[in-house]
C-alpha cells in the first residue's frame, strides 16, 4: 500500500509543475472599457430606433441589436474568446436547443384551427386555454372616471 503511494507520489514529482498551472491572457482594462462603450452605444441605438415606427422591422432590429450585445458580453466579458472550445460548444448547444423549443412550439401555436394537408385533419382551434391569459375580452376604462377621481383627490388636498 505504502509502496503504491510512493510510486504515485513519484509520478507527481516528475510531472512538470509549470505545465499544470493556470495560464490566462490578462486583457488590458481598456479592452473592457471599449466593449462597455459599444454596449452602451447599442443600447442607445435600440432605444432610439424603438421611438421610430418601422412596423415589423422594430422587433427584428431589437433582436439583432440584442444579439450583437449578447455576443459582445459572451465573447469578451465571459471570456469565451479565450476559453476552452468545449465550453463554446456547450453555450451554442444550449442556444440550438432553445431554437428547437421555439420552432416546434410556434409550429403548433401558429397553426391552430388550420387545415393540415399532410394529415388531412384540422388542427384543434383552441388547444388548452392558456392559464396566463385570464382575459378573453377587451377591458374599457372610463377616462372621465379616472380624471374625476383625480379631481376629488385634488380637492381633498
Amino acid at each position: 500500500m505504502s509502496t503504491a503511494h510512493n510510486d504515485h507520489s513519484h509520478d507527481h514529482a516528475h510531472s512538470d509543475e509549470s505545465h499544470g498551472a493556470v495560464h490566462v491572457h490578462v486583457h488590458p482594462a481598456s479592452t473592457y472599457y471599449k466593449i462597455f462603450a459599444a454596449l452602451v452605444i447599442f443600447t442607445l441605438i435600440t432605444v432610439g430606433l424603438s421611438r421610430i415606427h418601422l412596423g415589423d422591422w422594430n422587433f427584428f432590429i431589437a433582436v439583432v441589436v440584442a444579439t450583437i450585445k449578447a455576443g459582445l458580453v459572451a465573447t469578451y466579458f465571459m471570456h469565451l474568446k479565450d476559453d476552452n472550445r468545449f465550453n463554446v460548444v456547450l453555450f451554442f448547444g444550449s442556444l440550438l436547443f432553445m431554437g428547437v423549443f421555439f420552432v416546434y412550439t410556434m409550429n403548433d401555436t401558429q397553426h391552430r384551427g388550420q387545415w393540415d394537408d399532410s394529415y388531412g385533419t384540422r388542427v384543434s382551434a383552441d388547444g388548452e386555454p392558456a392559464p396566463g391569459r385570464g382575459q378573453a375580452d377587451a377591458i374599457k376604462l372610463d377616462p372621465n372616471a379616472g380624471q374625476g377621481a383625480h379631481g376629488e383627490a385634488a380637492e381633498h388636498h
Partner: protein
Amino acid sequence: MSEASADGHEDHGHHGPAFLAHHFTTPAQQFDAAKLGMWLFLAQELLFFSGLFVAYLVFRMWYPDAWSVGSHELDWKMGTVNTLVLLFSSLTAVLAVRSAQLGERGKVTMLLLVTIACAFIFLVVKYFEYQHKFEAGLLPGHYFAPVAGHTHANVFPPGTAAFFSVYFMATGVHGLHVIIGIGVLFWMVIRNQKGEFTKDFWTPIDLVALYWHLVDLIWIYLFPFLYLID
C-alpha cells in the same frame, strides 16, 4: 491501512498548492473542470429562461395589439436606466476578475462592491416600477384589473393580462437571479478579504462573474422585448 491513506493525502497536499483539491492533478485541470461545471449550469439557465421567452413569443403572436398596449404601460426610461446599470455592473465584474488575475486584492473587493451596489440600484428601480404596476392594477393573469386614471391606455385588448403575466414572471425570475447574485458576490468579497485568493487562484471570482454576466445577458433580451415594443 487508514493511517497509510491519511499519509497519502498529506503527501498529495505537499505536491501542489493549498488551493488544489486532492482529486485534481494540476491547477489547470481543476480550473477547467470548474469552468466546465459553470458553463453546464449556465447552459441550464438559458434553457430555463427559454420557457419564459417561448411564452413571450407565443402570446405576442396571438395578441400583438395587447403586447403593444401592455408595453406602453411600462416606463422605458426606467428600463433604459436599469439596462445601463446592469451593463456597468458587468464591466465592474469583469474588471474584478482581471484584478484577481493580477493579484490586486484591494481592487477586487472595491470592484465587487461596486457591482453589488449596481445590483441594489437595479432592484430599487424595479421596486418603483412594480409599485406603479400594483397601484394601476396591471397585474398578471386574472388579477389584471386596470385602474382608471393610473394607466396610459383606456382600452386593453384581450391578452393584455397575458402580457403582464409574462412581464412579472420574466422580470421576477430575473430579479430573483439578481438577489442571488448579490449573495454570491458578497460571499466573494468575504473570501477575498480573508485572503483566500491569489494571482494563481481566483476561480470562484471568475465563476461568480460568469453568473453575473448571464444575468446581464438575459436582461439584454428582456429589456427590448418588454419595454421597447412599437
